[in-house]
C-alpha cells in the first residue's frame, strides 16, 4: 500500500499571474507536498517559469508583473498584507537556468553571500557553514582546495552546483529550480538530478523542466501546464503511465510539444 500523501508545504489558490493585462497563468490551484520533488512540465510558453516565480514573489519584479489569488506557505499567504517579499525569498530559494555565480567573488565568498542573508557569521563558524553548504550541493570535494579562487573559473556544471550551494546557504524550506540543467552537459545534468534526490529529505523541491525523461527520473509528483492553465497533476508514475486527460497524454507521448 502506498504511504500516505505528505502534507502540503505550499498551496496555491486560484493563482493568476499577469503581465500588464495579459495573463500568463490562469486560476492555478495546486498543492505542493513537503519533502518531495514536484516537476512542472509543459510546452514552451505554457507559464511554467512564471508559475515558479510566483512562488517566491519574483514575478512582480518583471515589468508589469502582478498577481491575483493566493500562495500559501504553511498556511500563510505570501501575498498577504504586510508580508515582506524579502523574507519570503529567504524561505523559498531559487536556482536559475543559467548559472549566475557572482563574478567578482571567490567560491567561498559566493556561498558566504548566501549565508549573510540570515545574519553575521565569521571566522570558523562561517567556514564551517560554507563547507556544509558545499557538501550539500555535492561540490565540496571538487573545490575544497581552491575555495578562494574565482567562481567564474569553474565549469558550467560546477557553477550551477555552486549556485545551488549558495541558494541552500540561507536554509530555505523550499527550493525552486527553473530548468537548472538546461545549459549543462549530461554529466552535469546527472549530478544535479542526484542532488535533487539527496536534498528532498530536507527540502521541498519544485523543478521546472522541458525534459520529460528528467521529470520522470527526478520527481515524485508532476504537474502538466498548457497555455497558462494547470491541466493535470498527480503522482509521476501515474501521470506518465496512465494520464487522466487526453491533452496530457498527447504531450507525454510527444504528439505536440
Amino acid at each position, binding site marked *: 500500500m502506498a504511504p500516505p500523501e505528505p502534507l502540503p508545504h505550499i498551496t496555491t489558490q486560484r493563482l493568476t499571474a499577469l503581465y500588464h493585462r495579459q495573463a500568463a497563468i490562469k486560476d492555478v490551484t495546486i498543492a505542493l507536498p513537503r519533502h518531495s520533488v514536484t516537476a512542472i512540465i509543459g510546452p514552451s510558453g505554457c507559464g511554467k517559469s512564471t508559475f515558479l516565480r510566483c512562488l517566491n514573489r519574483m514575478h512582480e519584479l518583471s515589468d508589469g508583473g502582478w498577481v491575483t489569488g493566493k500562495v500559501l506557505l504553511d498556511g500563510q499567504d505570501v501575498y498577504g498584507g*504586510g508580508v515582506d517579499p524579502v523574507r519570503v525569498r529567504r524561505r523559498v530559494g531559487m536556482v536559475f537556468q543559467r548559472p549566475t555565480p557572482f563574478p567578482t567573488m571567490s567560491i567561498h565568498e559566493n556561498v558566504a553571500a548566501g549565508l549573510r542573508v540570515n545574519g553575521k557569521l565569521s571566522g570558523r563558524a562561517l567556514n564551517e557553514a560554507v563547507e556544509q553548504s558545499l557538501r550539500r550541493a555535492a561540490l565540496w570535494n571538487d573545490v575544497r582546495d581552491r575555495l578562494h579562487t574565482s567562481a567564474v573559473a569553474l565549469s558550467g556544471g560546477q557553477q550551477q552546483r555552486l549556485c545551488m550551494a549558495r541558494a541552500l546557504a540561507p536554509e530555505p524550506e523550499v527550493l525552486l529550480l527553473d530548468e537548472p540543467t538546461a545549459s549543462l552537459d549530461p554529466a552535469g545534468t546527472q549530478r544535479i538530478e542526484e542532488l535533487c534526490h539527496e536534498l528532498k*529529505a530536507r527540502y521541498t523541491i519544485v523543478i521546472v523542466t522541458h525534459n520529460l525523461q528528467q521529470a520522470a527520473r527526478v520527481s515524485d509528483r508532476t504537474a502538466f501546464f498548457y497555455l497558462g492553465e494547470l491541466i493535470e497533476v498527480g503522482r509521476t508514475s501515474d501521470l506518465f503511465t496512465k494520464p487522466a486527460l487526453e491533452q496530457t497524454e498527447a504531450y507525454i507521448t510527444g504528439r505536440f510539444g
Partner: protein
Amino acid sequence: MLSGAGGPGEVRLAVPGPTGTPPPAAAPVIPLQGRNRADRAYQISLTALALALPLLLVVLVGELATNARPAIERFGWRFLWTSVWDPVAEVYGAAPMIFGTLASSLLALLLAVPLALGVAIFLTEFAPRWVRQPVAFLVELLAAIPSVVYGLWGIFVLIPFLRSAVVPPLKATLGWTPFLEGVFYGNSLLAGGVILAIMIVPYIAAVSREVLLAVPASQREAALGLGATRWEAVWTAVLPYGRAGIIGAIMLGLGRALGETMAVTMVIGNRHDIGISVLQPAYTMAAAIANEFSEATTNLYLSALFEVGLILFVVTVVVNALARLLVWRVARGAALGSRAL
C-alpha cells in the same frame, strides 16, 4: 502534527518524513511579516544625491542670469552686434568675440573634420588589428593633454612654425584673398583655429568611430557581396547610414571648440576686432572672460562679462543637445560627452 495554519513566528513542529526517518531539528521559522525601511532609506539617499545635479544647474543658470542682468537691461539686443568694447566709457558690445568664437570654431572644424573622419574610417574599416590599439591610444592621448599645455606649445612652437613655414607660402599663393590680408605677427585667428582643430580631432574621431561601429555589418557585407571595393563599400553603404551620427559627432566637436578657453586665449591675440583675415588677432567669448574677468573693476563691466558667459553657455548647450540627438539616432545608448574622450 501540523503547523499548517499557524501564525507568524511559530516554531515548526517536527513532522515525520514520508520514509519515516526523523527530519532534522526544526529551525525557527522567519516570520513573513515585515517592513523594509532600509530599502526606502537607500532610495531616498540616492535620490537626494542625484537631485544635487538639477539643483546645481538651476543655481548656476540663476547666478549667471542675475549677474548678467544689469548689462542685459542696459544694452539689450544691441549687445550682440555692437563692436565697441570700452571699459572706460562703459560701453560694451560682444560682436567681435561672438564673431571670433564662430570664426575660430569654423576654421577648426574645416581643418579637424577631414583628419578626424580619416582617423575614424581608418580605424574602423581599414586598419589591421595590430595597428588599431596603439593608434586609438595615441588619439585618446590627444584628448588628455591639458588646454594650457596646448597653449604653451601654441605660443612657442606652433606660431613660429606658422610664421616661418605656413603663412609665407599661403600668402604667396592666396594672399590676394581678403582671408590672408595683413601682416602676420603670430597671435591670430589662424593660430587659434589650428590649435582648436588639433584639440577637437580626438572628440570627433571617437564619436564618429562609435557611430561607424554601430552601423550593422550587413550594410558593409551587402556592398562587398555586390562586388564593391573596400573603399566603395565604405563610401556608398557605411557612411550614408551613419551620416546623421557623423554630423552629430562634428557638432560635438563644435561644442568643444566653442567653449575652449586657455589654449585659445594664449594664441589668438585677444583683440576686440572683427576681421575677415585669419592672420589678424581676434577674440573669443571664453578667452575674453578669462582675460578680463579679474580686470573688471565696475559692476557693469563684470555684468557684461557675465552676459558673455550666459551667451556662451546657451550656445554650447544648444549645440551639444542637437549633437547628442543626432548621434543618439544612430549609436544609441553610449554616454557621450561624459568621458574625457
